[in-house]
């Protein structure tokens, strides 16, 4: 259990699942949720390195903390954009937003 690799693989798993969500969810909110998974995977990495490798455990924690803050801000912005889109397009299905291409 207490090996670094375990944590890293969990984080890799989370990261991949996040990516998969981003790539296949059509619901924008679903995509946003998947993005949160990405950030969490990175956070988990920081915490794991913090625990096993770093000289000073403060750094990882603080990074994780800030990332959470940023994630919150990001979620707020993302949601507001999604809402704006919804009001104009009456849908939050990303597959409907295909006007710009080529």
């Amino acid at each position, binding site marked *: 259990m207490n090996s670094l690799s375990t944590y890293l693989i969990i984080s890799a798993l989370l990261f991949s699942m996040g990516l998969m969500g981003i790539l296949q969810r059509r619901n924008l909110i679903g995509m946003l949720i998947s993005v949160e998974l990405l950030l969490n995977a990175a956070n988990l990495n920081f915490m794991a390195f913090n625990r096993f490798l770093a000289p000073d455990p403060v750094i990882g924690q603080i990074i994780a903390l800030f990332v959470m803050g940023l994630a919150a801000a990001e979620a707020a912005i993302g949601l507001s954009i999604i809402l704006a889109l919804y009001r104009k397009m009456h849908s939050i299905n990303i*597959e409907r937003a*295909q006007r710009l*291409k080529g």
Partner: protein
Amino acid sequence: MGALFHDPILLAIVLGTNLPFLSMAVILLFTRSNPKLSSQISVGAILVSAVSAIYLLAKLHCASPLQYQTLWFSSDKLLIAFGYYLDPLSLLMLTIVGVIACLVQIYSLGYMAGDPGYSRYYAFQSLFAWAMLNMVIAGSMLQLFIYWEMVGLASYFLIGFYYEKWSASQAGKKAFVMNRVGDVGFFLGLIWLVIGFGNLGIPELNHAAATQGLPQHVLTVAALLIFCGVIGKSAQFPLLTWLPDAMEGPTPVSALLHSATMVAAGVYMFSRIFPFFSASPDAMAVALAIGTITMLLSGTMAMVTYDLKQVWAYSTVSQLGMMVMALAAGGYFAGVFHLTTHAGFKALLFLCSGIFIHEFHTNDMRIIGKKGGRRLKIPMACIAVGALALSGVFPFSGFFSKEAILGVLAAQPNKIWLAAALLGAVMTAYYSFRLIFHLLFPKDGIEEKQHEEHGHSSHGHEEDHHGYIFWAMAIPVMILAGVSLVLGFVEHPIEHFLIGHIVEAHPVAHGAEHGGGEWLMIMGVSAGLLGIAVAWFEFGRKGASRKGFLSYFPAVWKLFDRRWFLDIFYRKSLDTFVYGGLTSLFTKNDRRVIDGGIDGICFFTEGSGRLFSFLQSGMLQYNLLMMVLAAGVAVLYLLF
């Protein structure tokens, strides 16, 4: 500059040769709109040239060759000199050219009167005179080549003088291109010499050749290549067809360029570097064969045409072939002498014909005869003198030169050349007198009534300016007739003058002269008389058929009339290989393959732009997928 004025000889050369150029420039730039002034300038200039030529001939009569030379430019080890080389040959030629050009220009005052291109005509005449005179006294082969080309250029302009006539411009082009073919060979020969020998000075070349200073392979190849130039310019065998076409030009032009002087330039060049040529027996053999073929071929052509000028054109080719034969057989003097006499009588013949043409506005000998050609007494007499000279009848000049040539040929081990020459002499006499008899004794007598009308209309014409125009034409003709009469009797002075200094260097040139005996003279004369007799039988006597024996052989007639199909052959091969073949092939290649390839690359680029633009689909997740995949591949790449 100073030397120019202190040396009267140099002054004479420079003035004599370059005044015509000046006159051309003045005419083209300033006096185009004043025909009279133009002609005066031009005639004045050529008079100076003629006079200075005669002066030089007289002054340097017995002197050793004179050479003026200055460096034109140098490139690397190649030194190109500009200079004059005055030896008997060039002095003789200078005089011939100067005098005949002068006579022709005077003649033209009458012949060309009233032509819209009068000024232009004189400009080109001056251009020609300048180029020809310079070519004659050029000190090096390169310089000779340059003026040689300029002469060709003048010929191009003069042939195409009536450029609104399609055939005239076509003939000009043909003349230029055919000459070009020969000239490229000549040019290559010069390059070959530059590479192999390094010097193009005429005395140097001759000296080196005579003293075996040149490697044989360089010499033979160079001689053959240079001989290509002779073939082109003097209308020898494969390239002979341009000259008859060149008769599209005004008659004085034909007289001057295409019989007396310019076409003789090839022969002149041959004799110029005669020692060089004769150092290569192979080249001489080729030249002999080509000369013979030319002479016979064009003789046959002359036998069937009814065009006055064509007859003399073919005859010119034929006589040039004869000169080449003479030279190639080693008869330096015979060749040059024939060149001299031929210049006189052929110019005479053309100018006389010109008077007829001018009078009757046709070239057809039958029509001229019918309309009363023989009424024009002076030209009729003169043309008869010319024809006699051409046929080699004693005591006209042609007799002497022809005898000399026969003598040279008789000295050849192979007698076939002699036989050919005799055959040629028969033909010459035949076609000359065929023409004369056509004029004198037209088929159905002279159409009096028509002539009355014509005479009447031309009477007023005569009264208006017949005097001036007629005499402007008649006087040169008479002078030339006189020359043709007397020239033969100065054979020995000329021979002495020409050979005097060469004889030691090259014994062949002299020795061949005395190969003949009495019987040769008899044979020559009888050949001429035979031809005349046949012509008399067919055309001259009362009740003659006036058809010519060749008309009984239609196939042969056609062959001769169509110039042995040479033209058709050239036309066809040009059309097939150049226009139809390479040109269209290359044009297609240019359009389709090269340009098509370039355009194809552009289309491909733009097409791939369209293709790539699908990567940027409107669907966000596909884009993201691409991005993630690319990142993943990058990570994997770095991992392994």
